[in-house]
């Protein structure tokens, strides 16, 4: 294919540009931003139209293509193709909402008619996609850069194995494999699919668990509801049963209150009875009691006993009296004697007195004598003659002696008197017993001793009798006194409760009504003797009988009173106990609460049955309660771990979707990998040999046979057969690599465009080359052009033109302003 004319009406920044390239080498020179790239894009535009908006690059290219001023891209390309000439018109106008309206035509210049209607020019004349066209026919700066470096190998390899410089099959396969391994590792575990499968399975398990748990929770809730209902019903029943029991208890309590009140009433009655009894039978508010009765009984017994004993004692006295023994006179004498100290003592005293009397008599006599003598001394005084007889006898002395003699005489008289007294006394001692003083003291003494002894004996007898008699008498007296006292005591005791009058009553009655008692004057009122008293009180009644009678009556009263008191105590105790037990109860409230109908019904109730029923309900309630608690506990545990199955189901669906997507993607990657691998194999089997062979031909032609074949070694490195052997392309010189590269490009173009190879479009292809290599490149282009391949070289330099000129290579130069 040869481009004959490029007519740009409007395209990007170019307007009304017309270029008529030659069929060989064409240099289109322009400064930067003069539109060289735009020109290249225009050629692609004519063949393929505006790029779509599908990628950013395409959008950019699209915007670049549309005229900056009018929003239009339009122009014409005239080409020579397979011996015919065609004009391709294309016009795109930017419309609303970024839409583009397009018109295109392919005009057969020979006939002037439109041909290939509704077909893309690219499809008609090139038969490849725009991408392929550009990658095969366009050599840009980057492509040039690669030639200089080691990437030439990659480019050549790509061409050989992919028939596309830009496509590296191995790289693509590696990328696909790497992607596939991420999803599905070949060995071992792991990978995205396994991850997603595991996640899905976990969700499935959780869902199953959640479903089971949900069913379980529903079941538990129903169990909880059931037991709540049951417990509620049982509580209601229990309340009713409790109310019934409470009502019955209240009824029982009211009964107890009734009993309490009955007890109180009874107590009142008994107390009234007691009061009446006291009033009737009591004294000073007291009634005879058991002790009183016992007292009366005891008194009666004692009185009886006492009177009996008194009688006995009286009889004893009388008996004793009749048994009187012993000479009372002698006994009396014996007493006297005894009083005097006893016969011995009397005799002793008698003797002593006699003796004393005798001594005194003697003394008295002596004294008389002396006294007389002494007194006679006075004679000496008064008779001085006599005085002289005794010279020593002085007057004083004689006086003294006189006095003394007188005194002594007197004393002697006294003594004699005393002796006489004593004797008299001594005689008197015995004379009292009939022993007169007859001068025989000794005999008298002996007789007295006998007498005393005799008296003593009589006395002893009498004493003994007396003693006995006295004892009996004493006893009788005592008994009398005792009996009297006892009688008094009995009277007093009887009088306590009015069984007889009391002594005070009698006295008072005397005082109050003396006339009734024959007392005429108050002064005659006196204390009565016991006998009088007893007579007045008892009259003809026998005290013992009185006592017995009184005891009987008192016993009756006491028993009655005791019974009353006992009953009162009993009832009081009962009432106390009832009050204590009923302390917390409000009787009025209870009576108000229990109507008569209720009470009537309760009377027919069986408390045991009520209690049994309540206990049964309590047992059921406890059982249901523990079941409820257990169910609530299990429900709380289950709800705590509950996962919503609906949510999990949604998550599971999403996980399944993601897994499915991943599997599909992995399957697509694997299919792409296999397909590309197969495609690569197919290419290597079919295209690569042809490509190598043709490229080898072109290479040989270009190098004068120096380099003949392009090959691929076992490591898929591209090689070239040289006279020195096979060498890898990377090891060749830059110029040789250029030739190899372009040979492959041309061979590829011939393969891809079997009918007519389109022009090579070189965009600043030599900008990175030195003059030598640039010249080499241009020479290659010249060689290609001799084979009918048009090349259009876009450059901002003049170097390429100069090189061509210097080398005498024909070319067409177009300046872009």
């Amino acid at each position: 294919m040869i481009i004959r004319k490029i007519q740009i009406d409007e395209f990007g920044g170019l307007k009304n540009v017309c270029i008529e390239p030659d069929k060989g080498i064409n240099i289109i020179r322009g400064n930067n931003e003069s539109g060289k790239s735009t020109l290249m894009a225009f050629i692609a535009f004519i063949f393929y139209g505006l790029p779509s908006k599908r990628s950013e690059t395409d959008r950019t290219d699209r915007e670049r293509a549309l005229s900056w001023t009018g929003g239009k891209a339009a122009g014409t390309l005239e080409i020579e193709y397979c011996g015919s000439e065609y004009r391709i018109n294309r016009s795109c106008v930017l419309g609303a909402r970024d839409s583009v309206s397009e018109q295109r035509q392919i005009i057969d210049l020979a006939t002037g008619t439109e041909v290939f209607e509704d077909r893309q020019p690219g499809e008609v004349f090139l038969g490849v996609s725009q991408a392929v066209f550009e990658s095969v026919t366009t050599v840009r700066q980057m492509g040039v850069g690669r030639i200089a470096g080691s990437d030439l190998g990659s480019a050549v390899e790509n061409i050989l194995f992919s028939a596309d410089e830009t496509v590296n099959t191995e790289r693509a396969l590696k990328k696909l494999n790497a992607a596939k391994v991420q999803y599905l590792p070949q060995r071992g575990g792991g990978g995205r699919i396994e991850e997603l499968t595991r996640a899905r399975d976990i969700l499935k398990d959780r869902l199953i668990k959640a479903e089971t748990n949900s069913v379980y929770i529903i079941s538990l809730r129903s169990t909880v509801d059931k037991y709540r209902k049951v417990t509620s019903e049982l509580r209601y029943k229990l309340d009713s049963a409790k109310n019934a029991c409470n009502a019955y208890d209240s009824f029982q309590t009211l009964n107890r209150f009734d009993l309490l009140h009955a007890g109180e009433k009874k107590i009142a009655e008994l107390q009234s009875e007691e009061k009446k009894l006291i009033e009737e039978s009591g004294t000073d508010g007291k009634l005879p009691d058991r002790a009183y009765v016992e007292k009366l009984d005891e008194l009666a017994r004692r009185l009886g006993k006492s009177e009996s004993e008194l009688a006995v004692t009286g009889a004893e006295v009388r008996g004793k009296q009749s048994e009187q023994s012993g000479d009372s006179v002698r006994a009396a004498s014996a007493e006297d004697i005894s009083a005097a100290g006893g016969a011995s003592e009397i005799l002793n005293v008698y003797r002593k007195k006699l003796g004393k009397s005798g001594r005194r008599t003697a003394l008295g006599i002596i004294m008389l004598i002396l006294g007389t003598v002494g007194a006679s001394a006075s004679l000496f005084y008064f008779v001085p003659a006599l005085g002289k007889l005794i010279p020593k006898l002085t007057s004083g002395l004689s006086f003294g002696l006189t006095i003394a003699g007188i005194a002594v005489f007197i004393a002697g008289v006294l003594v004699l008197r005393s002796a006489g007294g004593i004797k008299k006394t001594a005689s008197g001692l015995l004379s009292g017993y009939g022993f007169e003083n007859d001068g025989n003291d000794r005999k008298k003494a002996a007789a007295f001793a006998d007498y005393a002894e005799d008296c003593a004996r009589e006395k002893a007898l009498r004493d003994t009798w007396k003693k006995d008699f006295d004892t009996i008498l004493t006893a009788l007296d005592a008994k009398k006194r005792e009996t009297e006292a006892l009688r008094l005591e009995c009277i007093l005791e009887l009088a306590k409760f009015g069984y007889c009058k009391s002594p005070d009553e009698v006295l008072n009655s005397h005082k109050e009504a003396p006339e009734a008692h024959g007392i005429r004057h108050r002064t005659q009122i006196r204390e009565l003797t016991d006998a009088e008293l007893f007579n007045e009180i008892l009259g003809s009644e026998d005290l013992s009988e009185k006592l017995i009678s009184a005891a009987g009556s008192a016993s009756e009263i006491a028993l009655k009173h005791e019974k009353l008191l006992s009953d009162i105590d009993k009832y009081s105790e009962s009432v106390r106990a009832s009050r204590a037990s009923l302390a917390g109860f409000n009787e009025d409230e209870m009576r108000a609460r229990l109507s008569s109908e209720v009470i009537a019904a309760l009377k027919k109730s069986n408390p045991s049955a009520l209690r049994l029923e309540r206990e049964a309900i309590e047992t059921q309630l406890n059982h249901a309660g523990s079941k409820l608690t257990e169910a609530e506990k299990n429900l709380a545990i289950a709800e705590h771990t509950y996962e919503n199955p609906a949510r999990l189901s949604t998550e599971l669906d999403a996980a399944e979707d993601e897994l499915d997507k991943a599997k599909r993607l992995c399957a697509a990657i694997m299919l792409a990998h296999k397909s590309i691998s197969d495609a690569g194999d197919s290419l290597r089997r079919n295209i690569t040999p042809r490509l190598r062979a043709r490229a080898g031909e072109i290479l040989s032609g270009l190098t004068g046979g120096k380099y003949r074949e392009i090959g691929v070694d076992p490591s898929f490195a591209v090689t070239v057969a040289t006279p020195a052997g096979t060498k890898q392309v990377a090891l060749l010189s830059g110029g040789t690599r250029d030739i190899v590269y372009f040979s492959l490009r041309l061979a590829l173009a011939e393969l891809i465009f079997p009918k007519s190879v389109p022009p090579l479009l070189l965009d600043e292809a030599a900008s990175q080359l030195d003059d030598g290599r640039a010249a080499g490149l241009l020479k290659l282009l010249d060689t290609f052009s001799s084979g009918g391949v048009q090349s259009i070289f876009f450059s901002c330099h003049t170097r390429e033109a100069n090189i061509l000129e210097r080398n005498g290579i024909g070319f067409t130069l177009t300046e872009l302003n």
Partner: protein
Amino acid sequence: MRQALRELFGSIMRDASLSCDAALISGDLFDQGFVSPDTVAYVKKVLGDFGSPVFIAPGNHDPYNTASVWNSGAWPDNVHLFTSSSLGRFDTEIEGQPVTVWGWAFTSPKLDDCPIPAGFTAEPDRINIICAHADTSSVISRYCPMPLSLIEGSGCEYTALGHIHKAPEPVYAGKTVVSYSGFPQGRGWDEPGQGRVLYVEVEKGRAKIRIHPTGFRRYSELDLDITGSGSDSETAEMLCAAIPDDIYPQTSLKVYLCGAVTPSYKPEPGKILDSAAVRDGIDIVFVDETSPVLGAEYLESDMSVRGELYRALLPRLSSEDRDERKLASDALRIGLLALDNKPFV
């Protein structure tokens, strides 16, 4: 969505309580084996609040058994539940008229035989209604196949059926009106269109059906040919143009993208929706069934590995099997992107 379904059920029953003397639920009230406890409690309350008799025939998705939701404790007193797979009946009185409701329960996900015996005759002095989950479309159905001939001579006034979600038109079986209630609210694209319940006036010898629309959302499908589209924005334009103006405001729309696009274009649902001016309430999901063969005539004659790839996948790209075509389309896209050293995942 499930919350909305629950509330819809409540709303339906509340509306019905204003004018209906009874409710017939012919199965699959619960669509899954598991039901959340809250849902059960809610349904019980709603049915209880309805007040009037509710007759329920458990279906294949909610069969009656010991582990089923129907056994989750007591149901309100006005709920009458069929619990046996044999023909059962509930006798009641509605507005002074004696009514018998016949029915049965699925006790497992399958019921191979219909419990209605041949020659079945209903109570002549009563209004007879059948409430059941059954399949009238196939005599070999495993979901209680019920030929209409079984009830032709029954004398029943009305047969309320469940199981077929896309309810066919009511039919007569003898003098008995037979109708499927359909679904009150679609839950997916297999239940497209308007949801409904049936209000049925039943008298002795007569039944009249009135469709009562329900539902808050509709499911709909749309085939969208995006041949030639090279970008998501172009596709979005095509989508907006294809959506009818009178589309129901709350619609879940499944859009099948079909047609030929260039191999380098893979529709991105998110980007399409971002570019599309779609009304609020319209939810769109895409199913990509495009074929990446637009411009593929170049690939067909492409000598490079691209062309080889295309030619290798071409048989699958033209397969009758949708999945095969999708796999080949994806493989072609991925392969071309990999060859171009562009990201493909």
